[in-house]
């Protein structure tokens, strides 16, 4: 029993934080799904026609075909009944069938989410390699030429919309150098350009956060003490600098995940990456309400999940942030 005590203690300390995140996830699920439901209902045009057009091509669809789709999918049910039905199915973790493909939404999202997570993983990894290192180096000599140059590049790259950045990268690495696939997801190295497009946007800001954190660390008393007690600048940086710079950078990455989520939608479309953002865009065009609700829900939950993971990562880096 005594051996379980530390675990119980840890669980007790962490449970308020995890409980808050769980509640957040539930609220996000409810809000996102409901908002999507009403937004798709308020879109102009006839849903049955749009769905039929998605299935058969727009000029193969006449009023009779649209009516057949309306009857098949129960689209003439009152909005409240359809919404209540969706809430009920959500509780049973059943997101329904795609109106266009007739496949279970959960199955489709499962396939697409894997691709999105693959892309996001590489994007975050590349951004961690590209952003904080030049940021820390710039922070060691604030106001120097490297600091000013990274500032200029960061502003330029963050200001550039992902679709422009993506096209520039394709022109350089696919068309000119013929080194990487321009689009798709099966060819070797095909994840590189979409991941890099996302990573550059993330890295542009995280490098500045790392730079500011490094400037703060460098001006701190503990850093000065580390140098005074005889550590070399490199030893002081590794032992006392990096860890203290890490926490704000990781916290900032959480804020930047908004960029990642919005970027995924655009970047997946540009690079024909069959992820969840790509699916969301096509579901909106096809007025596929269950798919829109399902994909938006998963994107919202991903956001909550990433925030929770960042909380854990910050606590791992900085003991002062651990719940007492």
């Amino acid at each position, binding site marked *: 029993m005594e051996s379980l005590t530390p675990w119980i203690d840890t669980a007790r300390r962490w449970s308020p934080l995890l409980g808050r995140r769980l509640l957040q996830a539930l609220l996000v699920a409810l809000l996102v799904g409901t908002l999507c439901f009403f937004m798709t209902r308020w879109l*102009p*045009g*006839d849903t*049955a*026609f*749009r769905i039929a*057009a998605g*299935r*058969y091509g*727009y*000029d*193969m*669809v*006449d*009023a*009779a*075909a*649209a009516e*057949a789709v309306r009857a098949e999918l129960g689209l003439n049910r009152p909005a409240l009944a359809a919404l209540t039905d969706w809430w009920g199915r959500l509780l049973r973790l059943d997101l329904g069938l795609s109106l*266009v*493909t*007739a*496949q279970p939404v959960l199955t489709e999202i499962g*396939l697409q989410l894997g691709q999105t997570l693959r892309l996001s993983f*590489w994007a975050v990894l590349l951004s961690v*390699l*590209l952003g904080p290192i*030049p940021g820390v180096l710039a922070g060691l000599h604030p106001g120097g030429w490297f600091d000013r*140059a990274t500032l200029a*590049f960061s502003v330029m790259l963050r200001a550039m919309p992902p679709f422009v950045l993506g*096209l520039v990268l*394709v022109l350089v690495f*696919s*068309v000119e*150098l*013929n*080194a*990487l*696939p*321009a*689009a*798709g997801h*099966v*060819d*070797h*190295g*095909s*994840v*590189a350009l979409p*991941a*890099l497009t996302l990573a550059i946007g993330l890295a542009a800001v995280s490098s500045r956060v790392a730079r500011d954190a490094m400037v703060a660390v460098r001006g701190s008393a503990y850093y000065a003490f580390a140098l005074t007690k005889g550590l070399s600048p490199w030893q002081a940086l590794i032992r006392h600098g990096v860890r203290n710079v890490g926490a704000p950078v990781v916290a900032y990455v959480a804020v930047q995940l908004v960029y990642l989520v919005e970027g995924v939608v655009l970047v997946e*479309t*540009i*690079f*024909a990456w*069959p992820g969840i953002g*790509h*699916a969301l865009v*096509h579901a909106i065009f*096809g007025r596929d309400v269950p798919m829109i609700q399902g994909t938006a829900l998963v994107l919202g939950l991903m956001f909550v999940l990433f925030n929770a993971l960042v909380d854990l990562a910050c606590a791992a880096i900085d003991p002062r942030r651990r719940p007492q």
Partner: protein
Amino acid sequence: MVTALLALPLAALADPGHVHELTPASADTLTVVGPWELTGLEPSRSGFMFTRMEVTQTLLDVDELGRLRAGAASSWEVSNDQREWRFFIRQGNRFHDGSALTANTALVSLQRALSTPGVLQLAGIDDLYAERGAIVVRLRKPFAPLPYLFTQYSTQLLAPSSFNATGRVTAIVGSGPYRIKSITLPQMFETEFAETWNGDAPAVRRARYISVSRAETRALMAQSRQADLAFTLDPPSIRRLQRQQGVSLVAQNLPRTTFLKLNAAHPFMRDERVRRAISLGVERDGIARALLRDADLGATQLFPPALAQWHQPALAPLRTDPAAARALLKQAGFTPGADGILVKSGRRFAITLYTFVDRPELPLIASAIQEEMRQIGIAVRVVVGNSSDIPAGHRSGSLDMGLVARNFGTTPDPTATMVGDYANGGGDWGAMNWHDAALDAALARLATGAAPAAQQADRAMVAARLQASLPVVPIVWYRQTIAVSSRVKNVTIDAFERSYRLSDIKWNP
């Protein structure tokens, strides 16, 4: 510095062995990219992709000029009363799972096609069954274009093993020269040569189709040689690819026309002179040159040259003459108001034009037409909505004017389409509240096959009536342009978009 930073992590992801060569997955595989997504396995949804990639066959096929030829059926015949058709299934054909393609196995797919929205609904089919090696179709009334309906993708033939116990399609087991190797919905599928194919073995043994929604990306894939065939390119990409080494462009006119659908019951547009004035006000060549970047695409009549049997070279072409348009409108009783917009009986000539984004050029063309109409005194409000606005507005009678692109090549003989669109007052994607007894009679004769000798005259008459009365105002035709990698040769485009003709393509040495 930035390049160096970028290059470092990329080195880990790039394929170091193929820096200047194609990726290994595509080295012996022909890669086709297009905008169409696979929205499922149902033939009525994404079936066109499987016929285009030559995985599945239909009962019949068509040649370059749209003339019928044998497919899975070797021959066909019709009864004297024109109501019973027999399609004799070719002997010795096998599906990719090794099972025989017989009338009974073909019937399963055709009965499914009959129960879903699609071309078979146009024919008035009373009964469909298999008998003595033939598919028998009984019609409620004669319908001459019936064989053409069996060239359409939704009637493709799948093996019984394609369906599960509830009748849902769970696999694509066709009978074409290629069989499915893998499918990743909604984006791609791979094919390979099927040993069950009893025709000539193609030079291309493996192929894959990748759905890429953005035209710029498709062009870039062709430019970087990731794609061997890139379909549906946008005008800026076409211009860029014209200067690109290692890529050539192949173009083909398709039987698709963009036109203005006019409500002929509108108080102003019921007057034929007004409809002619609208037509005279449209600057077709300018739209074709400036927006489609192809000066040849200005429509001179409804039927493009790609519809060889319906296009009438002798017909006086539609022309642009704003001065003549203004004169016609004056003759029709309109006078200019204070703001230059015409007025008649105290009512301003202000109408709404609906269009949609399924074809990206439509909103641009609508904006050009808005300005051209303003110049002849008609105020047009453009609403860019979605494609359902057109049939919905047609049904409710609320549509003034719609800008649509109509595919006359849904089946190689557009008679069925024409009957639905123009006979008896018109249809969702054709005329609206417009009646022409002579045209109705001609279309009825063509549909029933009642006067085989007069068919060409009937088609000419239909084209002439539409040109004179203008229930729809043709704007531009359409040309499919594809980018072709220098790795391959012998690439041609099927005007009826039934096949990519992969089995005809050869590798360049």
